[in-house]
C-alpha cells in the first residue's frame, strides 16, 4: 500500500515536471514566432502579443467561445465516431485475415480520397449543418485509428493468446484484460494523431462548407485580410487541442501504461 502510494506520487511528480518542459518548449516556439513576426511585419505574420490581444478582443466580444464550442462539438463527434468504428474495425481486421484483406484497401481509399470527391454527397446527405464537418472528421480520422488498432491486434504475442485460451477467458475479458492493454501502446499514438487531425480537419471543413464554427470565422478574417484575426483563431484551436491532449489523453495514457518498465531497469 505504502509502496503503491509512493509509486503514484512519483508518477504525478514526473507528470507535472513534464508539463513544465512542455511549457518551456511552447515558449521557445513563441519566441521564434515573435522574431519571424518582427521580420515580416504584422500584415504577413503578426507576433504572439498582437495575436493574443486580438484573441482577448474576440473573447471580450463573446465571439470566441460559441464558435469554439461549435467546432469542438463537431470535432468531438467525428472523433468519437472514428475512434469507435476505427478501433472496432481495426481489431476485427487484426483478428481475422479475411477481414483484414477485405477492409484494408477500402481504408486506403478512404485515407487517400481528397474530400472534394465526396463533399457534394455529404452536403446532399447531411445538408449544411453539423453533419458535413462531422462526417469529414470521421473520414479523416478513421484510417489512422484503424491502422493502429489493426497492427496492435496483429502483434499480440501468440503466447499470451494461448494463456487466454487455456484459462478460458470469456470474450469480453479477453478484450479488456489481454487485447486492450497491449493495444494501448499502438492505439494511443493513433488516438493522439487522430485528435490533432480532427481539429485541423473540422476547421478546414467548416471553411469549405459551413456558416458557423471556427472555420467559418477564419474564412471571414481571411477574406478581410485580417491576419492577426486569423492567427488568433488558429491559436484558440491549438490551445484547445493542447488542453485536450495534456489534460485528458496523456493522464489516461500514463495510467494505462503504468506497468511499463522505467528507463534504467
Amino acid at each position: 500500500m505504502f509502496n503503491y502510494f509512493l509509486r503514484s506520487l512519483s508518477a504525478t511528480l514526473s507528470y507535472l515536471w513534464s508539463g513544465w518542459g512542455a511549457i518551456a518548449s511552447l515558449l521557445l516556439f513563441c519566441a521564434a514566432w515573435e522574431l519571424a513576426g518582427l521580420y515580416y511585419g504584422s500584415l504577413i505574420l503578426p507576433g504572439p502579443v498582437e495575436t493574443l490581444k486580438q484573441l482577448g478582443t474576440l473573447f471580450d466580444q463573446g465571439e470566441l467561445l460559441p464558435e469554439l464550442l461549435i467546432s469542438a462539438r463537431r470535432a468531438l463527434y467525428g472523433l468519437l465516431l472514428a475512434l469507435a468504428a476505427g478501433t472496432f474495425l481495426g481489431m476485427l481486421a487484426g483478428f481475422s485475415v479475411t477481414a483484414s484483406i477485405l477492409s484494408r484497401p477500402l481504408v486506403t481509399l478512404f485515407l487517400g480520397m481528397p474530400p472534394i470527391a465526396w463533399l457534394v454527397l455529404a452536403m446532399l446527405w447531411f445538408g449544411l449543418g453539423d453533419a458535413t464537418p462531422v462526417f469529414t472528421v470521421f473520414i479523416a480520422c478513421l484510417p489512422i485509428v484503424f491502422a493502429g488498432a489493426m497492427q496492435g491486434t496483429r502483434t499480440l504475442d501468440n503466447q499470451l493468446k494461448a494463456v487466454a485460451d487455456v484459462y478460458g477467458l470469456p470474450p469480453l475479458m479477453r478484450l479488456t484484460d489481454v487485447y486492450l492493454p497491449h493495444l494501448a501502446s499502438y492505439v494511443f499514438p493513433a488516438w493522439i494523431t487522430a485528435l490533432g487531425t480532427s481539429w485541423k480537419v473540422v476547421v478546414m471543413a467548416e471553411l469549405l462548407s459551413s456558416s458557423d464554427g471556427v472555420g467559418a470565422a477564419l474564412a471571414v478574417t481571411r477574406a478581410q485580410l485580417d491576419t492577426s484575426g486569423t492567427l488568433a483563431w488558429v491559436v484558440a484551436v491549438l490551445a484547445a487541442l493542447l488542453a485536450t491532449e495534456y489534460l485528458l489523453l496523456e493522464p489516461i495514457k500514463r495510467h494505462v501504461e503504468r506497468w511499463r518498465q522505467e528507463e534504467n531497469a
Partner: protein
Amino acid sequence: MSMKQLKVDNLFHKYGIVEVLNNISLSVSSGQTLALVGPSGCGKSTLLHIIAGLLTHSEGHLEQPFEQLACMFQSPRLLPWKTALDNIALGLKARKISRLERQQRAIELAGQLGLTRDDLDKYPHELSGGMQSRVALARALLVSPELLLLDEPFSALDIGLKLELYQLLRRHVEEHGTTVIMITHDLMEAVRLADSILMMAPEPGRILAEFPMAQPHALRDDNWIYRTSVELMQQPLVRLGFQLDGVGINHEDMPQPVAHGGCAP
C-alpha cells in the same frame, strides 16, 4: 468421482513439413500423474500443447474428457500489465468469481508458494525468475483444474522451495483428485511425483518406453527415490534416449519411428 481417461492414439504432428511427433499413444486416468521425460527438442511441449487444445495435431486421435484444465507453460507467460496478484487470479476472474474472493484465495495460495504480500503487488518484470515461475504455477493451481498440465514447473527453483512445492503439489493432487501430466528434466523429480514415467526420443519425437512407478506415494522416501532414479538411469533405453554413453544414437537398439502415409485409422 467418475473415472475419466485421457487417451492419445497414434498421434502425429508436423510443423510445416517437419515431423515432430511420431505415432504417440498414451493414456492417463483421473487422479494419476504422468511424467514426460526426454531430451531437449523431442516434442514434449508440443505434445502438451496438443493435449491442452492449443495446437491441432496433423493425424491420429485425441480423447480429452476433462473439462477444466490449466496449463503452466515452459516460460512464465505472465500478462505484463497485471500485477502478480492479478496474474494469479486470472483463471478465477474468467470464472466470474468476485474480486474480493479471488484475491483472498490468490493471496493464500501464493503464501504457500513462498510469495509475500509485497511480491504480489509487483508487475512481472519486477519479479525474480523463480518468483515468476511460482506465479505461473499458482495461476494454474488456483483454478483447481481436473487436468493439470505442467511444463518444467520447478526448473527455476532452489532445492528448498522444490521440496516444499513437491509436497504442496502432492497434497493438491490428493485433495482434488487432479490428473497431472508434467514435463521434467529431473529424473528424481519424476520418480518422486509420478505414477508413470514416459521416456521420449527425438527426431521425430516418439515414445521409447514407459516406466510405471508402483510404489505408493506415502512410502516414497529419499532413499527409495535416489535408488529408483539410479536404477532408471541404468536402463539402456534411458541411457540411449539421453545419449548418456556418448554422441550418436545406436539405431539398432532403439525403437524405430513409424513410417506413415495417409490417415491413420
